[in-house]
């Protein structure tokens, strides 16, 4: 029996739940992961990714030393030929090139992706580097591609976009709605608390989702709306609440504005009309409205299904309207809760990884705020909000952007309409990727800077319920890799020297704690959180304005950041690509339990063994019409591209809609998706793409043993059948 050399407490690197875990280390190898039972938010629970999927840390493919591309003349899409370089050589090259682009084309010709996987400290240094030294606000990250619709909607209506209530409150729910979130697969530990609320406390769950996800097995009521008709269902629920006078007049009078105008706009949104649009029986919509409005405390949880849409903002606004009219916000066990997808997607936004705000959403176009940052950093800063991630791609294509810095992200998997994204990135003069592996974007880069993984660095992550927690180094860095903040600080000093500026706050950090302290000083919401306190308490929910403040598990008890919550009238319409005669099916993309994001990490762990390739989930009706059985190979095509993969026939998919996970490069769902975006949120429509399906034969060169065992290996099977 192994006795560990040490057990290191840290935060899980996968989804936004922020599970606390113990890494058990022997001879610098993490051989097991456990969870402490006495620690929020997970209280001893983990999912398969956290408990068994962190072995990518020691994957042989880790980048161990800086790499410089030697076949640049062949174009970015040619298979890269790398030569190993020293840190000095690589960082000097990056500094030279970035400074050249800034001098020749101006700072706004540089664009950057911050990372929802890196720590708050990494992202703070990164946005400081981009803003202070490149002189641009062109910084964004993947939150644009997941929750921009939620963020924009929440900002418009209440003025704050974080999850309003904490994970700990879930067990005491009385009623709740889960919509557009396959919670058991995307936030497994949160789903356990939600299931517990249903099974042990008798909470009533309403699931509103086109797919028969696992949560439907725990639901009192499941509304299976046609894809893209969310607004119709939510508005008809509001209509019912008004007609049956189930709303909370005191809350509406004291805390909100615009209710009367909104009331008038609701008149036409009858449940019968919604039934004709969404396919959900009118009586079910009424029942859902009664369950939600009738409870003393009710919460709404949603995921990508709500936000990733050309009407993602409208979806969110109509959910906010429901919560405001029922007064289900500002109390424990209520709230508006967008479930964040990545371990530090909340923190990356909080740390200023967005084009329009510095830390904690302090606006770049607010002169007072800018003054504070100019004084702290000792340089002039651009007052113009930068480009969003979805706009950067187009700007690369039109050559407004000449250089790009990608920190631990993979736009070549995550951007919609991949062929366009590839053409855009090919035009860049300089592309540098800082990551732990060479992913699909890294393969196009000029320079790869090897960063350390979560298990090799210190820092903080902020989880989905705004809890700031520690990430701690458990093993030494692989090869010559260095923590992100350290690489960026070094690079910052080199760029400073070239630009001939010496900043007052500089890039002379010795430990992430120094970075946190600087960030804390410029961010009133973080004033009460420091490393010593996180050490003592395990984690602190921001906002936390002073050391004697307990932190804020649920928001808006007294008022909303914008003062009163505003009802927004929502029109029903869709800009989504609709199925037609040529492309008769609808494609929805999403995640599966065993993989995460572009599978840069999970695809290099033993998780790969149980879910090794993309499958296309198709309903039994459609399969029969197309003559398909589970395991058949198909070409799935949209107007933008074709992918080849196998089908899984399952009642989980509604008729007319197929589901393809976006994790798999060799069948990249985003070759098919459309880069049409929500006007306000700039989020792409990942859940609606018109496609056609054609039976085909297996691609050449498949590994045979792998081929045979795909569907008898458990994880890829019809979940509806098993239950």
């Amino acid at each position: 029996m192994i006795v560990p050399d040490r057990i290191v407490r840290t935060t899980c690197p996968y989804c936004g739940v922020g599970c606390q875990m113990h890494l058990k280390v022997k001879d610098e190898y993490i051989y097991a992961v456990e969870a402490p039972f006495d620690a929020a938010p997970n209280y001893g629970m983990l999912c398969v990714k956290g408990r068994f999927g962190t072995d990518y840390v020691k994957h042989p493919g880790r980048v161990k030393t800086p790499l410089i591309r030697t076949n640049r003349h062949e174009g970015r899409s040619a298979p890269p030929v790398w030569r190993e370089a020293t840190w000095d050589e690589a960082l000097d090259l990056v500094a030279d090139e970035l400074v050249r682009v800034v001098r020749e084309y101006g700072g706004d010709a540089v664009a950057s992706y911050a990372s929802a996987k890196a720590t708050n400290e990494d992202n703070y240094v990164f946005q400081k580097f981009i803003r202070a030294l490149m002189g641009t606000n062109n910084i964004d990250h993947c939150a644009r591609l997941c929750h921009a619709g939620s963020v924009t909607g929440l900002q418009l209506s209440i003025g704050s976009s974080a999850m309003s209530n904490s994970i700990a409150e879930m067990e005491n729910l009385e009623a709740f709605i889960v919509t557009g979130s396959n919670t058991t697969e995307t936030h497994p530990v949160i789903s356990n608390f939600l299931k517990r609320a249903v099974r042990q406390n008798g909470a009533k769950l309403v699931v509103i989702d086109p797919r028969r996800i696992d949560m439907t097995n725990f639901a009192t009521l499941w509304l299976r709306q046609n894809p893209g008709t969310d607004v119709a269902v939510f508005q008809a629920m509001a209509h019912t609440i008004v007609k049956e006078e189930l709303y909370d007049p005191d809350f509406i009078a004291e805390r909100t504005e615009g209710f009367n105008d909104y009331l008038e706009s609701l008149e036409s949104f009858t449940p019968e009309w919604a039934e004709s649009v969404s396919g959900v029986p009118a009586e079910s919509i009424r029942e859902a409205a009664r369950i939600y409005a009738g409870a003393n405390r009710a919460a709404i949880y949603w995921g990508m299904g709500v936000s990733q849409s050309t009407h993602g903002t409208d979806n969110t606004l109509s959910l906010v309207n429901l919560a405001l009219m029922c007064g289900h916000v500002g109390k424990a066990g209520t709230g508006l809760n967008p479930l964040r997808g990545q371990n530090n997607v909340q923190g990356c936004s909080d740390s200023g990884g967005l084009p329009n705000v510095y830390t904690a959403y302090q606006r770049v176009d607010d002169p007072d705020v800018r003054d504070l940052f100019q004084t702290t950093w000792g340089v002039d800063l651009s007052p113009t909000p930068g480009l969003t991630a979805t706009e950067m791609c187009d700007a690369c294509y039109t050559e407004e952007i000449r250089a790009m810095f990608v920190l631990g992200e993979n736009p070549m998997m995550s951007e919609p309409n991949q062929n366009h994204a590839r053409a855009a990135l090919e035009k860049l003069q300089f592309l540098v990727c800082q990551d732990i592996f060479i992913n699909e974007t890294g393969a196009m880069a000029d320079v790869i800077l090897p960063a350390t993984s979560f298990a090799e660095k210190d820092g903080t992550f902020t989880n989905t319920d705004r809890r700031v927690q520690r990430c701690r180094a458990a093993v030494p860095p692989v090869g010559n890799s260095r923590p992100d903040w350290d690489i960026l600080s070094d690079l910052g000093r080199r760029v400073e020297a070239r630009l001939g500026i010496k900043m007052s706050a500089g890039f002379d950090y010795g430990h992430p704690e120094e970075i946190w302290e600087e960030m804390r000083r410029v961010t009133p919401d973080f004033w009460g959180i420091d490393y010593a306190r996180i050490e003592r308490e395990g984690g602190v929910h921001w906002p936390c304005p002073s050391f004697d403040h307990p932190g804020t598990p649920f928001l808006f008890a007294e008022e909303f950041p914008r003062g009163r919550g505003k009802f927004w009238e929502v029109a029903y319409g869709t800009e989504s690509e609709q199925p037609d005669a040529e492309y008769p099916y609808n494609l929805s993309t999403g995640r599966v339990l065993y993989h995460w994001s572009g599978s840069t990490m999970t695809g290099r762990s033993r998780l790969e063994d149980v879910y090794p390739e993309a499958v296309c989930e198709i309903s039994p009706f459609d399969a029969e019409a197309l003559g398909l059985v589970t395991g058949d190979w198909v070409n799935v095509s949209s107007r933008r591209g074709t992918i080849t993969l196998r089908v899984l026939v399952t009642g989980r998919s509604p008729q007319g809609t197929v589901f393809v996970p976006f994790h798999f490069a060799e069948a990249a769902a985003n070759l098919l998706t459309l880069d049409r975006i929500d006007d306000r949120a700039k989020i792409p429509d990942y859940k609606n793409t018109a496609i056609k399906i054609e039976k085909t034969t297996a691609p050449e060169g498949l590994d045979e043993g792998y081929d045979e065992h795909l569907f008898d290996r458990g994880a890829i099977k019809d979940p509806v059948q098993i239950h």
Partner: protein
Amino acid sequence: MTNMVTLTIDGLPAIVPAGTTILNAAASIGIEIPVVCYHPHLTANGLCRVCSVDIGRRLQAAACVTTVAEGMVVNTQTKDVVTARRTILEMLNSTIDLSEAPHLQDLLLEYDADTERFDGMERRESPVHDDNPFYLRDYNKCINCWRCVQVCAEDAQYTFALSFDGRGFHTLIGTFEGDGMMDTTCVFCGQCVGVCPTNALKPKRQFLLEQGVDPDDIFRQTRRGGKRRREPVAEN
């Protein structure tokens, strides 16, 4: 207002809310009662009886599930109680491989158990199940504490992949029709591994490391050998 109950534990007074278990009542005044199957974050079942205490009745009571009563007199260290615990430990030791259960090893020492007392008794044996990439199930080490079944069910995951199999002495943890884990509803969250007190459930990486496999080779032993998809895997 909660009703408070007064009782005596090992001669000391304790005042605790009604509904408290004897185990927690004792802990509240600093008296530790040994436990094996009990886990503070899971539903208690009183299966192993190592927490047995004397409450003045003919039968000893399992402290983890018995709630306090007004005027109750509890003795946690009588001769009979200690004998009962020692016998339970000796019987466990004679039928089950406790070599990787440090807590049980400590208790065997503490209760001065005669590890050879039941020598020759039938041992409960079972093949080691190595049927998935994440964890192994070695029920030779299983004491049937029920924790894994409970976290798989209503104590955590609501997946219901594990249950009991067989009867009496031959009761083992099992799956529906003895299916391998890949063919059950298991989602490999490993909550069961996290609560196993005897290392009967063990992460595969830990198992391979214990077998002396080099960490780099542990990767090569995955089905894909650490290779990306749709690349042929070389035979080795």
